[in-house]
């Protein structure tokens, strides 16, 4: 795809002053350091987590590794959504980074130029990062794979074309019927040809199968972690679990598998010792809603600092990244691509799809399995899809007797105290409910 006409941001080079660029860069770095510091302060934190901290670090080890890889002629593919099959990207020999940004500062340059103040801040931040090149890792990207999921992501991919080549993926947004699956398989095969063009390596069936196997192993490790989180006192916090699973989006998966194994074994030992990552008697929270890319861990941090603990989530930057394995039945190429395409499409409960009853069903099931006491539904400002589904979900959860609080947030630290007050009240309410229930059952037992 090439833009023949006038470029969206023709004067991008001269528009932003050097001071603004440097300021954005500096503040991004400071923000990441601050978030990382709060994560490290958590009690009973497993030692194996330090690898994942280092991986996510601004200009950290992963950046230098990728830079070296890129300098040697290796290709780096940026992704904009969970629906990009990373098995395929890895099979082509390219490395992956997730471009969706969690940095607050780049929102301002994007705001200046885009003229849509109500747009999703994650989209603005991703674009701003590109405009003022505030994150060096993003500058390494050779090609972007962007599924056209929500309006914001679709236009984001289109505008990004000014900087890097973009492969737009036409994701069918209605799941019913036989045509949607066929269209998506074709889009995946289109991505495959584009990847082959980029890297110059043809993607062989055997390599792809090997990659699928590695990713399935990662999926198995993730479900093992979910099992640990089911415990009464899980030894890992929700933020750490999110950090771990988001690492799959930027790491080499075989190395991630190894580090994850270490983490799981350490967690099991911690669990044996009875160490709990949260506060005593913490409210068991399920976090759902709009994506939260690291370092935008504002809401989870507030929850876990106000006497709650995130047991599981229903986020596309959390649980949903690794929720499903690829099950290939048969040896033919067509069957492998079909299996790959369907794993990234049918079980995905992104609100951009309709019908999306899967989401409510999954949340209800999680509530049962993980013993959830309350749901925090987070929406980013301008995320219409999540906002619209929130009410539906709240009504469905009311039937189950599970309270839900909806928090709207911006990429901004201004609303922290306001959100904290609401979360604290919510956690208090859950604890009061628990005590009421306990006394009630005790009375009944008498």
């Amino acid at each position: 795809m090439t833009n023949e006409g006038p470029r969206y941001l023709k004067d991008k080079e001269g528009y932003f002053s050097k001071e603004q660029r440097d300021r954005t860069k500096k503040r991004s770095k400071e923000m990441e350091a601050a978030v990382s510091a709060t994560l490290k302060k958590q009690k009973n934190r497993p030692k194996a987590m330090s690898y994942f901290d280092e991986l996510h670090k601004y200009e950290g080890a992963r950046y230098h590794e990728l830079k070296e890889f890129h300098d040697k002629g290796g290709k780096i593919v940026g992704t904009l959504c969970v629906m990009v099959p990373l098995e395929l990207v890895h099979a082509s020999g390219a490395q992956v980074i997730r471009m969706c940004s969690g940095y607050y500062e780049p929102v301002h340059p994007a705001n200046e130029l885009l003229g849509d103040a109500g747009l999703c801040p994650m989209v603005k931040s991703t674009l701003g990062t590109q405009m003022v090149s505030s994150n060096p890792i993003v500058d390494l990207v050779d090609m972007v794979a962007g599924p056209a999921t929500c309006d914001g992501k679709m236009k984001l991919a289109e505008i990004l074309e000014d900087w890097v080549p973009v492969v737009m993926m036409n994701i069918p947004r209605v799941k019913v019927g036989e045509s949607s699956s066929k269209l998506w398989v074709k889009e995946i095969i289109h991505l495959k040809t584009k990847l082959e063009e980029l890297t110059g390596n043809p993607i062989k069936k055997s390599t792809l199968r090997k990659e699928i196997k590695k990713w399935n192993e990662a999926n198995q490790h993730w479900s093992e972690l979910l099992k640990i989180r089911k415990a009464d006192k899980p030894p890992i916090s929700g933020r750490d679990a999110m950090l771990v699973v988001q690492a799959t989006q930027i790491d080499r998966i075989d190395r991630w598998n190894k580090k994850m194994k270490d983490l799981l074994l350490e967690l099991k030992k911690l669990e044996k010792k009875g160490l709990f990552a949260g506060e005593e008697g913490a409210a068991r929270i399920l976090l759902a809603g709009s994506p939260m890319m690291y370092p935008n861990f504002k809401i989870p941090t507030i929850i876990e600092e106000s006497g709650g603990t995130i047991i599981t989530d229903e986020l596309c930057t959390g649980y949903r990244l690794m929720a499903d394995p690829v099950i290939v039945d048969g040896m033919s190429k067509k069957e492998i691509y079909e299996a790959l395409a369907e794993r990234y499409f049918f079980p995905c409960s992104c609100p951009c799809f309709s019908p999306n009853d899967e989401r409510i069903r999954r949340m209800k099931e999680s509530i049962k399995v993980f013993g959830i006491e309350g749901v925090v539904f987070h929406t980013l400002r301008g995320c219409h899809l999540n906002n619209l589904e929130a009410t539906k979900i709240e009504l469905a959860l009311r039937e189950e007797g599970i309270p839900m609080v909806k928090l709207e947030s911006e990429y901004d630290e201004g609303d922290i105290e306001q959100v904290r007050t609401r979360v604290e009240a919510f956690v208090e309410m859950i604890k009061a409910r628990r005590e009421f229930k306990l006394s009630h059952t005790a009375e009944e037992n008498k």
Partner: protein
Amino acid sequence: MKDTYKGRNIRPFRFIVQLLALGFVFSQMVGIPPFGTHPLLRRIFLPNASCRYISEAPTSCYYYQLQDGLTQGYANAYIDVILMLLIVILLIIALGRLWCSWLCPFGLAQEGMTKLREMTGLPPLKVKWSGRVILRRVKSSLLFFTILFSLPIGIGSLGIAGCQSTLALPFCQVCPAKGFFTVFQQLLGIEPWSTTLPWLAIGSLSLFLIATFFVDMAFCRICPMGSVMALMGRFSLPWLRKDPSKCTKCRICLRVCPLDHDRVYEDMEADDVGSEDCTLCGKCVELCPEEGCLTMMYGPISLKSSRRPRDMGLSRMIKKIKEGGNDK
């Protein structure tokens, strides 16, 4: 298995049962009566998995007996057919469609053709929803026409009894099993070589073997014996249970189904999703990645549930840590 990236825990077991059933049928060919020679046992006709055209067969598939009984039974008010059907109904209640995917020798032959296709690297041709509706109609109309042809030619007063020599046993004339067993026995020398080969049956045998190379289980899609079992589906003991609350709609069950049975995927209300086309081969149960979403049931007993793929090495290490702590 290598190709699925998930352990198969039903297929090996099913394969053994299928081989035993095949041995059971083939043993009749060399004169070993599987049930013994008691005259009462000779009244048992199986829902499938046997054939009249095996020379020493003490009994046969009931479909032969149904056609034969409908033609011959006019004089004694079809009492034989009714008795035979009662026994068959009991057998179907007991084993349901396990008769199809676990015991039918032609099912095994078709799976062999599927294996052959997999070796060539060709993908299977999937039948669309509209095609499945048509095939379902073909299946029931085959049953209907078998009865329509067999019944009147046995009624003498209609004056078409002369057609018996050509029109009797209409389905057997085109049944691939007849083609297979007559030729096979003649080749082995069990039966004397004759020139009057059942060409129609041999033709349909070759047709279905070729068709099943491209479309999985091509014959099962129109098998009239299967359609009788599907009618009895809700009364028979084995069934397929789905727990919709655990379903993530990932579509694996539909994609791997050899018969493209879509109810397992589509139905989000019913408990029993294995009616109509399902032959209870258990492939979806093996490959479903959700813990306890699909279950093979026998009456109220659950035989095998779907489960999440696990890294066995890691699970063992985790278990070790757990037990190691207990020792201290």
